[in-house]
């Protein structure tokens, strides 16, 4: 087999937790200009640790853009389809930056940190692009926009034991924190923003800090998690976890050619709040009915369908796989693709071309995995 040798490049960015990740045995790769671990113990072990106990991620590569000023609410209402006025300090919402066509510039979380004070947490691959996009749409809005990504270290503690592991480390009452709620607090004397958010489909927390020694926090969490067999988690398991939970990935499942409605995210479009960038196009599409839609499939039998593999129905190529993997928890291969609306019924048989052969698959309901609420 051919192994691509990983050339250590000094031009790659490192997070503040790089040394810490490496010393834990992280297999480092390049990810959109960042030097990040793809795995530690192994993707399957890491994946199952998050589903059953807990895992800790370094996600500092994500971007943070602040939007402040007397018209920040109106500005963000204009830029995004969700209703920002429903936020209060401190609460987050999942939303998108949309084009005039109602397609994606990015998907993101917006946190309301205070009156006229918002923090946008965006995909690592899109940070610069999103920052430029927001700046270019500022117009006459009285807002200040800053790319604060370099200042933030972000960690994610995810899994059913996340609360038990984090609670002893902070004075915040984590059991009172609702999903998408957040609060400033402290861990080991360091100021942190803790939110009940995540990208895995499990309960968990994301921890943001400006600390220049964030490894102290990281190590404390790992220590607290030791009795629960907490594992450090890499990007490989991050992807299998989010795909099982059917959380979309920009670049794979959503981009500037897919509309928010086609991506199955109509629930975050709040037309009643007023016009926003793309609202006219989306309203028109809603009235006419979408012509294609994202669907989930499972492979019957062996084989993995990966991004860009062609999808056929009755001998005709209709689309490509957007995301696909072997699901460690469900123990089968799953994936996402967009199909013409007439072919999107659950149970529809499709075939996927893999290296000249066809794998049989069928459309199944989404999400692939949903955790039990306790």
């Amino acid at each position: 087999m051919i192994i691509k040798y990983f050339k250590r490049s000094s031009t790659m960015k490192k997070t503040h937790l790089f040394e810490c990740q490496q010393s834990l045995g992280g297999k480092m790769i390049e990810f959109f200009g960042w030097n990040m671990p793809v795995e530690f113990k192994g993707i399957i072990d890491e994946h199952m640790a998050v589903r059953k106990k807990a895992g800790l991620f370094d996600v500092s590569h994500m971007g943070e853009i602040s939007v402040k000023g007397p018209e920040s609410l109106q500005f963000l209402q204009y830029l995004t389809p969700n209703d920002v006025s429903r936020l209060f300090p401190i609460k987050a919402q999942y939303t998108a930056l949309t084009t005039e066509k109602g397609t994606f510039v990015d998907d993101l979380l917006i946190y309301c940190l205070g009156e006229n004070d918002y923090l946008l947490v965006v995909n690592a691959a899109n940070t610069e692009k999103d920052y430029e996009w927001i700046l270019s749409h500022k117009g006459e809005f009285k807002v200040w926009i800053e790319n604060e990504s370099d200042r933030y270290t972000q960690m994610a503690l995810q899994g059913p034991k996340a609360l038990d592991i984090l609670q002893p480390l902070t004075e915040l009452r984590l059991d009172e924190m609702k999903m998408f709620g957040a609060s400033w607090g402290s861990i080991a004397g360091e100021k942190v923003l803790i939110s009940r958010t995540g990208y895995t489909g499990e309960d968990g927390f994301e921890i943001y800090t400006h600390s220049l020694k964030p490894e102290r926090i990281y190590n404390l969490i790992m220590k607290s998690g030791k009795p629960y067999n907490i594992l450090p988690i890499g990007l490989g398991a991050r992807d299998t976890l989010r795909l099982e939970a059917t959380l979309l990935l920009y670049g794979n499942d959503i981009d500037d050619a897919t509309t928010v409605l086609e991506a199955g995210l109509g629930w975050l479009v709040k037309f009643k709040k007023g016009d926003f960038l793309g609202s006219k196009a989306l309203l028109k599409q809603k009235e006419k009915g979408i012509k294609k839609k994202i669907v989930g499939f499972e492979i019957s039998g062996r084989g993995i369908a990966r991004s860009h593999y062609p999808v056929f129905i009755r001998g005709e190529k209709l689309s490509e796989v957007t995301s696909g993997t072997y699901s460690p928890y469900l123990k089968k291969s799953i994936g996402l693709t967009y199909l013409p609306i007439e072919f999107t019924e659950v149970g529809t048989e499709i075939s996927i071309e893999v290296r000249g052969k066809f794998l049989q698959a069928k459309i199944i309901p989404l999400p692939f995995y949903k955790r039990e609420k306790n």
Partner: protein
Amino acid sequence: MNPNEYFFAESHEWIKIEGETGTVGISDFAQKQLGDVVYIELPEVGAVYDFHQSFGVVESVKAVSDIYSPVAGEVVEVNSGLNDSPELLNEDPQNKGWIMKIKVKDESELQKLMSALDYEKYLESQED
């Protein structure tokens, strides 16, 4: 010819000669790079391959890799247990995780391969 000697290809496959046939698999280094193996596409018994021709595919969660025949020859046996237990390739890649047995067409081709010691040196030289 020492029957227990492993020969390694630059593409990280090994072959162990026993008489006219060789047992073929991937190296420990290769399985570490791959990560958790979930599927393998085995060759068919009777199939004929050239030196460095792809004879199968190993799929881990994160990647797909062709596996290349370290010698020219005809497949005489495959380890079909790998279908149900692909993790054997991670657990014991140079023994229980063997992939196929091939009837070696031309023994002199083994000179294109590396000894275990040379392969270790080769791996070290790749880490820069």
